[in-house]
């Protein structure tokens, strides 16, 4: 190994939001087929400023402001992808994707299986609650897409993963729903590799432990870590799913087989959430390794309320996760 240039790739401290912008910039510089489109993403830089600076660097053809029309944003992206471009569309709030759902599940998701044509596009979905967004600006709709064959679904929790997985999503040949948690945008900072950075669509052990696995992703990963830290070091493992489709089944099973107990956290409404699939997987394939029931902490099946006291009643908290973990550890 040379003594001159042996350093690891340089890193920079970025917020989760800055890491997303960095991924877009790096990938747009690297590949002229990549372009972004969405409401207010141009000179304004997006409702959350995720595309800030891109319009000045890449111009109006590659940073396209669109009318308020989610079906057309997604549907024209499908068309552009069929023609060989690599659109990255921003849905201003993940909740609004419902108005463009058909283009995603019936057109984009089924295209390759039906026709052999690839649809290399990314749908950026600012998701999640925790900041008094109310019932139309707080949802975690990832399970909608998990149930639609042909869509990949990513939900990173850290700045480095946000950059690496968004970059990998842009290079993927399939439609990818990229759930970026709004509550992490400016609250979470971390070291992020500069320049090109790719992360695989796999799970990651965020904290090692021997007695219990907490499975989480997105904003819940941070609450899970906070809850795990309340126990003695080495007791509670936290697995960050990072990718929901594909779901890293082997990583989940390996962790649960090691710890023999599992607690699964979803910020999404409980019924048929990502965690329900994880629970089914564990029950099906790790039953004989379990020393306790499969437990879940998730939002109850109501819309996400506005008033902070109501919202905190609905969303999982570190206290609730820790309480469930305590019960499981004592089981």
């Amino acid at each position, binding site marked *: 190994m040379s003594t001159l240039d042996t350093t690891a790739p340089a890193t920079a401290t970025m917020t989760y939001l800055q890491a997303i912008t960095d991924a877009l910039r790096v990938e747009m510089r690297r590949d*002229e*087929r990549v*372009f972004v489109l969405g409401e207010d993403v141009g000179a304004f830089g997006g409702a959350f400023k995720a595309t800030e600076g891109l319009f000045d660097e*890449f*111009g109006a*053809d*590659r940073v396209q402001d*669109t*009318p308020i*029309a989610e*079906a*057309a944003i997604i*549907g*024209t*992206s*499908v*068309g*552009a*992808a*069929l*023609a*060989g*471009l690599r659109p990255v569309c921003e849905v201003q709030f993940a909740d609004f994707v419902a108005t463009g759902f*058909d*283009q995603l599940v*019936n*057109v984009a998701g*089924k295209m*390759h*299986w*039906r*026709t*052999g*044509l*690839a*649809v*290399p596009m990314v749908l950026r979905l600012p998701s999640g609650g925790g900041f008094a967004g109310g019932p139309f600006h707080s949802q975690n709709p990832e399970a909608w897409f998990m149930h639609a*064959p*042909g869509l*990949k679904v990513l939900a990173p929790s850290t700045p480095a993963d946000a950059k690496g997985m968004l970059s990998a999503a842009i290079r993927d*040949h*399939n439609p990818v729903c990229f759930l970026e948690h709004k509550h992490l945008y400016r609250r979470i900072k971390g070291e992020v590799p500069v320049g090109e950075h790719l992360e695989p669509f796999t799970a990651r052990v965020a904290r090692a432990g021997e007695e219990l696995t907490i499975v989480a992703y997105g904003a819940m990963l941070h609450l899970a870590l906070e809850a795990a830290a309340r126990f003695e070091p080495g007791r509670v493992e936290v697995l960050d799913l990072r990718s929901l489709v594909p779901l890293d089944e082997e990583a989940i099973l390996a962790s649960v087989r090691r710890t023999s107990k599992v607690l699964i956290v979803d910020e999404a409404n409980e019924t048929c959430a990502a965690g329900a699939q994880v629970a089914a997987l564990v029950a099906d394939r790790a039953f004989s390794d379990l020393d306790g029931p499969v437990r879940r902490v998730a939002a109850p099946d109501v819309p996400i309320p506005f008033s902070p006291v109501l919202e905190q009643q609905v969303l999982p908290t570190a206290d609730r996760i820790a309480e469930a973990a305590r019960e499981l550890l004592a089981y």
Partner: protein
Amino acid sequence: MLAESPAPPSTVPSLNRADREALLGFLVGMRTFEERGVALYKQGRTPGSFYDGRGQEAISVGAAFALGPDDVICSPLIRDLGAHLVRGTDLTEIIRHHLGRDNRLSRGREGNVHFGDVDRGVVGMVSMLPDMMVVAVGLAMAFRLRRERRVALTFFGEGATSPGAWHEAMNFAGLRREPVILVCENNGLAYSTPSSAQFAVGPAERAAAYGMPGVVVDGNDVEAVFAATHAARERALRGDGPTLIEARTMRMNGHGSHDDARYVDPELLAAWAERDPIATYEARLRADGIDVDAIRAAVLARLDAAVEAALATPLPDPSSATEGLFCTTEPRPLGRGDAPWSGHAATSSGAAAGDAAAGDPPAGDTTIEGAGPAAGSPR
């Protein structure tokens, strides 16, 4: 009646004798194929259902005949078999597809009117209407961004002008002046629902509100549909944006072979039968001295051979149903279709700029904006 008239075509499209023979061949090809299809369905040889476009053949044939080889159809719909035939998709493969046999178009994953031909620049439809119209606008956007001389063409029925996706596609296309041709097949019926229960203002009249011309054309006149589509294509290639063509026609059979369409006024059907697009065109060509019977005989011989070959084809391997959900190899670009009109050979307008077929942007450019000569819109 219309708020805006179309710009006159920059060149008057001419059809020579061979073009007319070809057009009649495609019209007869669609009619005879679908008559055979109804028979196969009623014999129980076709799973699911069968849909035909009797009376509407001139629209898909005439529109597709105006396209260049690099243009994309996204998508032919329920009564647009003629578009597939013009693009040159193999007849045997289409029949295999209908029969649920192994085939390269759909691998048995879809049936009846749900197919395209990737190798010929034809993207298959979905059932949610008019979803593929939005996708066509996106294809056109890519062509514009890359300054390619090619257009996208989409078909939709008058009933499909009601959903929000139609408005979104019209608004995007008009606002951004996308090189897209929007062909509305107005047969007056959305399944059983007449236009009087569908909208207050007709499709062509609405076009002006989106900043594009709305052209009404006799959908039973294949040359009129061809000329309108040719003009729309020239306009799109000039960078002047989309055109909505409303081709008026009549659905002569039920929505599908399962539908006896007793809700349709028999007198209305009788009146439209007098204007049958194939009978009238045959009479015209016969008067020009063209051997119509020879064209029919050739079409029938091809059909017979294709049906025989298709019926001898095995069913798909059941285990293949779960394969290929995700694309794991380099994406495959849309191919080039047949463009049989003689005018494409005579002019350069049938070819895309350079060889920048879908997939690869021209080398050496760093932005889409800088990709190639500005042949498209200067907006």
